[in-house]
């Protein structure tokens, strides 16, 4: 039998069937090629993106908040990275299905919780309470030191992670607390410079998209969605050395006089910089538990008081400027001045005093008489020019403007009391700035909390240079023998300044409580610094500005002049001293 002769094979299929199959197969291949072309070339992004989404993640790039520095680049506030310890729980599943990698904090054993509690310095029951039961996350503790966080992570507890966050530190603590202020938990400024300059200080957290491998290591950067930007540093005018001196002298004075509070500021007369600003009571910005209540108030900026006699030199300057008075013009200061039923008098009645002596002895009667010769609107205009009645607008939060009523509503007695600083209110900062006029040659320059490098040449001229020089002499007399504040003197330097003792207003009436103040400058031959001191309710026997505030002024000014190396401008009895040190009667 010949297989070749199989009749079935002998039957020839029609040629078109083979061709049809070929065409069909070609068409199918064509379809595949087209699909591949579509996926690989035309619409290639879709699956590429889908693929990347499986491995790519968006990570934040941390950015830190800028530092607050003093004028010599000492750090006053700075952020450093710490950790927040977070507990995460996973949805509960039957144990058989649970992947060991997939269990959360709810599976922590009591022993592990105890371990955690010990490291965090917390009670273990508190931690147990904070762990979320099902599918959730919560902070166990925030602002944990990096070393502790490292130890916790080394335990490899399920569901316990550390998240980076920042903590703000204030190395100088309470000393510069009122100027610098503080930030909240989320590193946002809440008080002081931290709030006023929040925008330049704040950093911008960046974002980047990365590809990670199975162990979540970043293997490739895809794109930067937003570049991180660290916050800028802010360089203040404050000098940390002076700030500490002022702080400690003020603290001493408030304690010695059993006062309720006190403030002191130091200004640079050439640049208008605020070199030091201290208030008592103060607070420690590093301790978050105490950040509330009256100690937070930056009294030099936010609290107004009746300035009392410190305002008198302005009236004297107006008198000189009017041309009707000279340095020596006699003023009758005897007895009392009557306005209807109200009367104005001096503690000790003076006879006839010269204009200079009115300031030196601080006669209310004399200065009220002089003020009576001016129109209320003229007096208001000068007070307004000196910056009273409106905030200084240094950008400091909560800055008060004080009270200066419009001249049209002044009664004669009010004009008289306002000439010696009652019936109006100011902040200590305004008062200190007003003395720029006398410490400089009659012009007023704006103040600055940030460092200024070039001296301010032209301010707003309020009085003539001649007037300013004469008032300076009067103020030197006031701080000298026969004046109200001989205790303001500093050996080796000529100082000038004016005391103020004002009754405190309580419920609309003057109470038997006082605010003692002193504003002055030195050295008189070329004034460099203005120091203003205010002590609220001194109650240890003495309450006059000359007894309470003037010695503080003297201490602060002395320390400031010596710390900055200002050459003495008053003769010092050199010979006697040389002898002293040779004979060595007193041990050094």
């Amino acid at each position, binding site marked *: 039998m010949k297989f070749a002769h199989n009749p079935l094979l002998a039957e020839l299929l029609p040629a078109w069937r083979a061709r049809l199959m070929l065409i069909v197969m070609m068409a199918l291949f064509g379809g595949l090629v087209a699909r591949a072309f579509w996926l690989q070339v035309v619409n290639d992004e879709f699956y590429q993106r889908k693929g990347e989404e499986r491995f790519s993640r968006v990570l934040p790039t941390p950015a830190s908040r800028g530092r607050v520095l003093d004028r010599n680049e000492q750090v006053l506030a700075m952020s450093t990275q710490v950790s927040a310890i977070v507990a995460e729980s996973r949805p509960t599943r039957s144990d058989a299905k649970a992947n060991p990698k997939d269990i959360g904090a709810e599976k922590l054993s009591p022993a592990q919780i105890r371990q955690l509690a010990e490291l965090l310095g917390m009670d273990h029951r508190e931690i147990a309470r904070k762990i979320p039961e099902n599918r959730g996350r919560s902070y166990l503790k925030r602002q944990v030191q990096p070393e502790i966080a490292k130890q916790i992570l080394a335990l490899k507890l399920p569901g316990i992670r550390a998240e980076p966050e920042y903590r703000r530190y204030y190395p*100088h603590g309470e000393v510069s607390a009122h100027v610098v202020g503080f930030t909240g938990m989320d590193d946002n400024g809440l008080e002081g410079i931290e709030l006023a300059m929040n925008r330049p200080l704040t950093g911008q957290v960046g974002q980047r998209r990365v590809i990670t491998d199975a162990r979540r290591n970043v293997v490739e950067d895809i794109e930067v969605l937003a570049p991180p930007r660290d916050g800028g540093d802010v360089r203040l005018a404050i000098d940390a050395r002076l700030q500490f001196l002022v702080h400690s002298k003020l603290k001493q004075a408030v304690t010695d006089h059993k006062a309720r509070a006190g403030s002191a500021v130091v200004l640079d007369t050439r640049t208008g910089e605020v070199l030091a600003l201290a208030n008592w009571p103060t607070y420690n910005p590093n301790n978050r538990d105490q950040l509330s209540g009256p100690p937070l108030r930056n009294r030099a900026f936010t609290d107004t008081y009746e300035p009392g006699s410190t305002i008198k030199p302005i009236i004297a300057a107006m008198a000189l400027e009017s041309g009707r008075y000279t340095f020596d013009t006699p003023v009758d200061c005897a007895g009392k001045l009557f306005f209807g039923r109200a009367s104005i008098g001096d503690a000790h009645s003076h006879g006839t005093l010269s204009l200079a002596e009115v300031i030196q002895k601080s006669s209310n009667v004399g200065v009220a008489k002089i003020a009576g010769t001016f129109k209320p609107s003229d007096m208001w205009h000068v007070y307004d020019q000196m910056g009273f009645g409106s905030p200084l607008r240094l950008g400091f939060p909560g800055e008060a403007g004080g009270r200066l009523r419009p001249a049209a509503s002044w009664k004669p007695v009010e004009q008289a009391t306002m000439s010696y600083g009652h019936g109006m209110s100011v902040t200590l900062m305004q008062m200190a700035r007003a003395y720029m006029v006398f410490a400089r040659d009659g012009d007023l320059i704006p103040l600055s909390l940030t460092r200024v490098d070039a001296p301010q040449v032209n301010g707003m001229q309020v009085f003539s240079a001649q007037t300013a020089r004469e008032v300076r002499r009067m103020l030197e007399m006031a701080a000298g023998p026969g004046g109200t504040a001989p205790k303001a003197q500093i050996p080796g330097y000529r100082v000038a300044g004016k005391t103020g003792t004002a009754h405190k207003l309580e419920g609309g009436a003057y109470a038997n409580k006082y605010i003692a103040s002193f504003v002055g400058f030195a050295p008189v031959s070329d004034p460099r610094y203005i120091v203003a001191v205010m002590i609220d309710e001194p109650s240890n026997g003495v309450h006059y500005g000359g007894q309470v505030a003037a010695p503080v002024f003297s201490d602060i000014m002395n320390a400031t002049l010596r710390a900055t190396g200002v050459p003495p401008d008053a003769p010092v009895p050199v010979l006697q001293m040389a002898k002293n040190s040779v004979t060595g009667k007193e041990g050094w």
Partner: protein
Amino acid sequence: MLRLNLLLIAALVISAVSMVSSQHRSRALHTELERELTRMRVLETEWGQLQIEQGALAAHARISDLAETKLRMRAPDPNRIIVIDSTEAGQ
């Protein structure tokens, strides 16, 4: 013709292998970069802490306390200070 094809195949294989190896190297380098960046952040944190520590140690309150108690220093009384005229000082 055959030689050319062999040459092309060899070139293709070399290119493919070097592509894989360069990809691998890029990832390795990237991981290293990532590690260095992390190290930089750790060092930055440490530097910040050192700055704060320095600030706290150099705080004037501490220094004045140490000077007074430990070194028994004090500011001289003003009447014990002798001012030397700078013009005479050079002689």
